[in-house]
């Protein structure tokens, strides 16, 4: 698929420059090793939230840096984990004595690079591992992938950190959000990595890929394309198997577009998913619909359900001011 670019090896740098210009009111881009960091003033001693990952998932994570959410994001090359020097630079830049909490998506490269940084970091730090994707069986030896639920962890923990929660509390909260979040995705196309020039895999005109991640790879199965209702039912069933939401539970329902699916279709999926859980007596109290954790130009979407206790709900509602999410200020 064709792209707007000058050269594949300058795309990321140029794009980060544009992002930094466009949002210069709230973030700044460091010199290499690249870090996007929050500019808005913050309480000294607040826990510094740092995340990051390969680029190609925008707005995750750079678009989520700012008041009430991440203090810094470390952008790697497209689909490539950032390197420890980025995380160390980030920690140096944003830790004001309250310690650093790394929010890490569960992929081998992300886990290892963040671990190395954490080991090298002198100051107190902790890590929350996000693994909300239920497409992969729980028993999988790598563990499950971190996907669209990552944003939810970042938002809720970000609010707690903004309100002065300490490092241990932030970590515990992040793990609680992660435990109560389940996601699953489906793709109608793969994506095209600029350096490869062609879609990572191909699907026929009547095929869909069930249980995909966000790096353009095959999912669990290639299936015949079916109705939105049937697709939603499949995704929801996997989520229910994992989360087992009870009647009267409060939940956040997040329909995430992978990049090339029109918003109209995302709201259709929202309608179907909301109906599914309404029929189970689950109380969908918050929604988020749109392209948040993308996979370049993949057509597809994921459903994420987060079971919210009252604290998590309050923290979700707390003010946030990033490039992509903003409310309460």
């Amino acid at each position, binding site marked *: 698929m064709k792209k707007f670019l000058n050269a594949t090896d300058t795309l990321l740098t140029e794009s980060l420059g544009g992002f930094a210009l466009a949002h210069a009111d709230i973030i700044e881009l460091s010199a290499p090793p690249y870090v996007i960091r929050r500019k808005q003033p913050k309480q000294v001693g607040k826990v510094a939230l740092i995340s990051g990952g390969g680029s190609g998932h925008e707005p995750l994570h750079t678009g989520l840096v700012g008041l009430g959410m991440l203090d810094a994001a470390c952008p*790697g*090359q497209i689909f490539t984990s950032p*390197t420890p020097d980025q995380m160390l630079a980030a920690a140096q830049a944003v830790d004001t004595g309250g310690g650093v909490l790394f929010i890490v998506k569960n*992929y*081998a490269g992300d886990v290892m690079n963040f671990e190395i940084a954490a080991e090298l970091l002198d100051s107190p730090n902790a890590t929350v591992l996000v693994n909300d994707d239920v497409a*992969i069986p729980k028993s999988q030896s790598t563990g499950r992938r971190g996907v669209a639920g990552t944003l939810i962890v970042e938002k809720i923990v970000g609010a707690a950190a903004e309100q002065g929660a300490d490092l241990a509390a932030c970590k515990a909260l992040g793990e609680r959000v992660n435990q109560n979040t389940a996601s699953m995705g489906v793709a109608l196309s793969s994506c095209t990595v600029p350096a490869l020039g062609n879609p990572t895999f191909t699907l026929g005109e009547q095929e869909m890929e069930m249980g995909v991640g966000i790096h353009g790879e095959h999912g669990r199965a290639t299936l015949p394309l079916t109705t939105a209702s049937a697709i939603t039912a499949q995704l929801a069933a996997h989520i229910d198997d994992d989360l087992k939401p009870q009647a009267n539970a409060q939940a956040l329902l997040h329909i995430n577009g992978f990049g090339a699916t029109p918003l109209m279709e995302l709201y259709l999926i929202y309608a179907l998913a909301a109906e599914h859980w309404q029929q189970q007596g689950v109380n969908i109290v918050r929604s988020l619909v749109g392209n948040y954790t993308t996979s370049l130009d993949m057509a597809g979407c994921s459903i994420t359900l987060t079971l919210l206790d009252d604290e998590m709900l309050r923290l979700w509602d707390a003010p946030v001011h990033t490039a992509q999410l903003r409310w309460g200020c």
Partner: protein
Amino acid sequence: MTYPTTLLPQLIEAVANAIDENAEAVAALDQAIGDGDHVINLQRGLAALLAQREELGLLTWSAAWQKMGMTLMSTVGGASGSLLGTLFLEMAKAAADQALDLKGFAVVFAQGVEAMKRRGKSEAGEKTMLDVLVPVAVYLQSDACTAAEGLTGVQAVAIAGVESTRAMLATKGRAAFLAERSVGHIDAGAKSCQLMICAISAVLSAAPT
């Protein structure tokens, strides 16, 4: 014979060439059961090493590997970057400042591979680069690895290692998400490591004694 670090420029060039010549094939492997970025990540790291090759050739092995490890760690990225960086940094620690012959290198290399296993929480048989690096480490430390035969033998071991990944079910890395669909594909990291080992062995074989 001991190998001086003055070989480093030539070694790095040989590795970079080997990767470049096989770039499309390696990319295709990571595309089939990964996310397609492995070879460009490696090439970025190798480009950085190439830029440093002259100065590396003036250091001790320990200092050179320390520098190479830091470079790879901060330029490659992803799973392979963290693991290759770990390999070189551990070899730097293990090497002290002695001159290295093949046996000496074997000891240092084995320590490096152990550090990779700890970092990746992985071992051979999981369809990763370890399926080349572990057999290579074992071979280098074995009696079969003689001064005369070792540099040829290690290439055969590496090639056998990468081929062995074809039939494996991936239980580490991205390919593991594909479960059974990972079977029948060679692992990209294993392939790139085999290419690198063969290129290094060829240079060392031709090194003046």
